[in-house]
């Protein structure tokens, strides 16, 4: 069973993360009393989606330690401009905000650069970047290309957006193959829409 590696919403979930097995739980609502950060990003996974099936709860929440909720939302919006994926829920873009927030914790220089960049995004959007129209957002981000802030956010996208189980599921990459015995009997040559190579070019698999 895959788990969504967003930080656990409640303390009793922390053990589940370590074991890698997250039993489905019916959360009435995210328990706000445990969330005491500088900002909380929250959302709901679409019911019936692949991702909702993998998650312990359709409700997700991410706690920021340094940035505000509004700042986190701006970073999420910038992430969607940089790498716009309809397949990815907001929860994945929230990981970007959380990871950037994490790098800002205890690093005043990094925090200041992020805040300044976010502030620039909002100013250029006439107040609220996250609510600006798509073409406006794109033009603003394009104008920042090459800046330290742009490079930091774009670089962080590589691992935050793609190196997690939600992205793996959304894009169809099964991740580790070892514990499933590899693909020797699981479709490594199941492609049928092109002619098969000759036995000389591609000998049959040895199956013992």
């Amino acid at each position, binding site marked *: 069973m895959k788990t969504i590696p967003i930080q656990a919403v409640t303390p009793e979930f922390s053990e589940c993360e370590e074991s890698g097995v997250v039993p489905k739980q019916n959360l009435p609502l995210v328990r706000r009393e445990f969330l005491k950060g500088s900002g909380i990003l929250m959302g709901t996974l679409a019911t019936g989606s692949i991702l909702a099936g993998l998650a312990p709860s359709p409700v997700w929440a991410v706690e920021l330690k340094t940035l505000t909720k509004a700042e986190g939302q701006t970073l999420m919006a910038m992430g969607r401009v940089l790498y*716009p994926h309809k397949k990815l829920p907001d929860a994945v873009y929230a990981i970007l905000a959380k990871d950037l927030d994490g790098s800002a914790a205890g690093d005043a220089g990094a925090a200041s650069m992020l805040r300044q960049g976010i502030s620039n995004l909002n100013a250029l959007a006439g107040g609220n970047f996250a609510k600006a129209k798509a073409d406006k957002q794109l033009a603003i981000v394009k104008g920042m290309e090459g800046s330290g802030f742009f490079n930091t956010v774009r670089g962080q996208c590589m691992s935050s957006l793609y190196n997690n189980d939600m992205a793996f599921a959304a894009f169809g990459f099964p991740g580790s193959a070892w514990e499933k015995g590899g693909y020797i009997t699981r479709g490594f040559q199941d492609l049928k829409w092109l002619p098969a*190579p000759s036995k000389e070019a591609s000998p049959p698999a*040895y199956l013992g």
Partner: protein
Amino acid sequence: MASIAFNDDSAVVIIGSGAGGGTLANELCQKGIKVVVLEAGARQSPQSFVNDEWKSFSQLAWLDPRTTSGTWRVAKDFSGLPAWICKTVGGSTTHWAGASLRFQEHEFRVKTVYGDIKGANLLDWPITLSELEPYYAKAENKMGVTRTNGIPGLPGNNNFKVMHAGAKKLGYKEVHTGNMAINSQPRDGRGRCMQLGFCFQGCKSGAKWSTLYTEIPKAEATGNLDLRPEAHVTRIEHNEKGLVTGVVYFDKDGKEQRQKARVVCVAGNSIETPRLLLLSASNMFKDGLANSSGQVGRNYMRHMTGSVYAAFKDPVHMYRGTTMAGIIRDESFFNPKRGFVGGYEMETVSLGLAFMPAFLDPGAWGADYAWWMDHYTNLAGMWLVGEDMPRETNRITLNTNVKDKWGSPVANVHYDDHENDIVMRNHAFTQGERIYQAAGAIKTYRTPPYPSTHNLGTCRLSAKASDGVANKWGQTHDIDNLFISDGSQFTTGAAENPTLTIVSLAIRQADYIAKQMTEKAI
């Protein structure tokens, strides 16, 4: 396993445990010679390898600081990571894809065949294919290379099917699942390939040859090997006669140690090997050890590389199975009518979802780029690898502005593509795209070079001492008991993946060292 005393000056000390160092160690141990292997990295195992791209990268890759310069694109995209090679017992044989091709006859004498190429420092090898052939045969047998020694080829995966179909439509003839040092059936105490798809992350099934679980344990079983992981060598020492006497290294506790030696063999890959010779400069050898020619660190080659990815209407699932699942060899031959000298191979490649966005086109973003990730399951990929031109100005130097944690200047890797490399890359990109279009691609992408996995030529073999660093045995021209034992020896790069040749040279060098020791010449 042997325990060799620090002041024992009768042993051969080998620096590095990869394709060159690990093989040489086993070959010497089998002959009854005592060997100390100093490996900078830690010891992993198939059990500790992980099918996780970033985690594995942290576990295996050489991540100590390096710097870059030059006009090659890697310097822009990966300024602190010129090479994707390993710091671990087994070296880059943990990471390599397994392609095991012999060089072609003419590739040992390209200066003669290609003539003078402006801006290139070409030289014929001091050895010929026929001299190396018996050692190629030994290496293929040792490594269990498919399509040699009666070993069947591997079964091709979906990624290979796509490349094969397109190649056949274009009329390419030599298209198959390659000569791979990956067991297609159980052999040598190791199982057959499980088609895991994580060849680059260390083969968890052990089907792919790596010195980590072949040469090294076999050498340990002789009782002649003293393997010291996490031993970072900072200096090779010599006496007043100009012969090397031992090495200084920092052990896993950060403690400085001095190991005496009868012979020192350097096999730290083509970046660290010249760096160590340069770091060992002394009053007697002011420009570094074995550097009377001034060629140490020069002629750095990294192969002409690039990749083509293509998206199809239907699923491919390229990540399933052997990463390098097949090859097209028709462009590897010498045919100057194409507008360049040398040739290139086309070999399937795939990246997992975690690495794909970082390597498809480093730095790229936007909706068009996101489109490629959206089509991940429908992608096929191939790697292009060809002979690049050795240039004196492409070189490893010491960057005294940046120090590693032991206080030594780091290696700077400078590389400018030669015009021949650029023309060849464009030709290869075009052919790669045509192959995928012939197979029905809806879009193709020209992916720029990854950090170098084939690092070659920085202590090259030469007939004359003034042209290179070592003689035809890898013995340095200047110091009789100092040997170069890795890909640094390559006089020129050839089109083929280098590991089989590194292993063959190591087997051959072991015979020579043993003979020289018996004759008391060293």
